[in-house]
């Protein structure tokens, strides 16, 4: 028997696929924002509150079944595409195959709602420029330390349903501390779509990412 050393890596494999995809986005000039978070944390609601204020948007939505989220978002964007993932627990870079170059050329912003799941999507970058982790107050302020992979993968944490915080004993300071114990300096925004609070900061964050992206954009 002979032992042959290998250097294949899952992370590297996924990273290459994501990078290739991101180059396509860069060439089309669109900024791709991915939303991650458990079922019902408010991913679709946040998009409903965001899309009307933005021009030229596209939406990709991964769900195990049903196109309900796409129906909710369709009125606000150029295209809205549903990917029924069946028994898959995450989207991956290859899922963008459903999009044509002309669809990409139509938009400046793309929002991707990944499958509601705090574990698997984190390990599978799809090539989004920014990954946003949503956690809603009823899930509890101790959720963060329980799902460190999601935090490690995120560029921003949004704490949603903030108006419910007093009713569900959600301690925002505790939440921030545990987020920063995993990833120091990770920006955290608190908002409530229901009461329309904290949304300005979210919009500012989005535009800031857009201008950062335009400045750094290198088309090879």
């Amino acid at each position: 028997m002979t032992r042959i050393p290998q250097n294949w890596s899952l992370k590297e494999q996924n990273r290459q696929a994501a990078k290739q995809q991101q180059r396509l986005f860069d060439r089309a000039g669109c900024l791709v924002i991915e939303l991650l978070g458990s079922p019902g944390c408010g991913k679709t609601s946040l998009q409903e509150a965001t899309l009307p204020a933005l021009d030229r948007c596209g939406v990709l939505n991964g769900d195990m079944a049903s196109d309900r989220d796409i129906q909710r978002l369709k009125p606000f964007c150029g295209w809205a595409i549903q990917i029924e993932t069946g028994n898959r627990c995450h989207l991956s870079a290859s899922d963008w195959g459903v999009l044509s170059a002309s669809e990409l050329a139509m938009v400046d912003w793309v929002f991707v709602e990944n499958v509601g799941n705090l574990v698997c999507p984190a390990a599978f970058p799809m090539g989004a420029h920014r990954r946003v982790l949503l956690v809603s107050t009823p899930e509890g302020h101790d959720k963060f330390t329980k799902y460190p992979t999601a935090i490690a993968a995120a560029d921003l944490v949004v704490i949603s349903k903030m108006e419910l915080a007093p009713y569900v004993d959600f301690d925002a300071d505790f939440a921030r501390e545990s987020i920063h114990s995993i990833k120091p300096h990770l920006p955290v925004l608190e908002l409530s779509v229901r009461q329309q609070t904290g949304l300005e900061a979210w919009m500012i964050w989005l535009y800031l990412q857009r201008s950062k992206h335009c400045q750094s954009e290198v088309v090879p």
Partner: protein
Amino acid sequence: MHEFSVAQQLVLAASQAVPRPELVREVGVRVGLLSGLVSESLAFGFEAAKQHSAIPQAVLKIQVAYRSGFCPACNLTFEHAHFWAPCPKCGSQDTQNQGGDDVQLAYLEVDE
């Protein structure tokens, strides 16, 4: 949760790594403690994925990989099982942490 699809990717990578995959007897894999994968499920998935593949004889050997921390002040490298950990010697929070979050194909044992 996605152990099966990772197992399929591993089987494919191992099958393509050598000219005669049918001679592969052992597939050595490093599974990071922070990869989010359960080794038992990965092993189970591998058994299923190798059927009808180019490496039906291969046995999966899993080695656990820790995360490595580095404290610049102490010039100390240490292993741990968190995304981030303070220096065990001086307690500094200014540490660099890497690894332990991947699944890597480390080696193949092949029959002569």
